């Protein structure tokens, strides 16, 4: 799901120990972003939802976590095009993918 070696070794030229704080910050920020998406979804606030999606897309693109960047970009584009999107389904989907990503990060740094 995540190509740790490509990002950490090739791009960041860092060690596992050096990069761990970045992943901890990422996980914490994503937890917060998903809570905010959920809140915007409950309120039916599509504008805030769209802005948050844009941020989620940016954060994950920077971290090269394509399994989140790509579906989020699709939902964002659909909203931009004025298409109807079920915000709750969308949040559940992002949350579910992130749970797997988070588990993978935890496993990687526990070894």
């Amino acid at each position, binding site marked *: 799901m995540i190509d740790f070696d490509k990002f950490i070794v090739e791009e960041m030229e860092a060690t596992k120990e050096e990069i761990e704080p970045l992943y901890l910050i990422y996980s914490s*920020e994503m937890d917060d972003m998903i809570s905010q998406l959920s809140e915007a979804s409950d309120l039916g606030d599509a504008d805030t939802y769209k802005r948050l999606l844009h941020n989620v897309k940016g*954060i994950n693109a920077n*971290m090269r976590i394509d399994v989140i960047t790509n579906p989020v970009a699709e939902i964002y584009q659909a909203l931009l095009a004025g298409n109807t999107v079920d915000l709750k389904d969308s949040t559940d989907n992002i949350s579910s993918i992130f749970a797997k990503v988070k588990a993978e990060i935890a496993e990687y740094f526990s070894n």
Partner: protein
Amino acid sequence: MENAKRILIVEDSPTVVEHMKMLLKNSNVKVLNAGSEFGMMQSIESYGKLVDLILMDLTLKTENGMDLIRNLRSNDRYKELPIIIITEHVSKNLILEARELKVRGYLKKPIQKETFLDRIYEVVGNVSIIPRNTDTGSGGQTSEEKKKEEPVKSE
């Protein structure tokens, strides 16, 4: 670090800030971050003219980066302060506006290490602690990629 250059990152994603800090870890720079707790403008002004460069994200969660630059440029103290903008989308209008505001260059998101460092060194000088490979000068980018990220000229 003696004679370290000071770079102020105006970005409200902790992940992106940490990512940039890590990319600069082998450079003789002091990285500062403008938090949004009391408003970005106030946070930027609290550093005053102590900084050598501002990296300004244009799509902040609560504020518009271009408005902040306009605000800065309206103050004599910050008229010449070097600014590089960070954005996902680059349009002709954006480049024209950036030129008017004397922006020194732009970086496209997602951040690519070589381009990121090249842009910064163009403005503050090469402050790399570890010698960097300058054989290609493009960080492995194609000429097309390089062209897309050319600095905004401000003549």
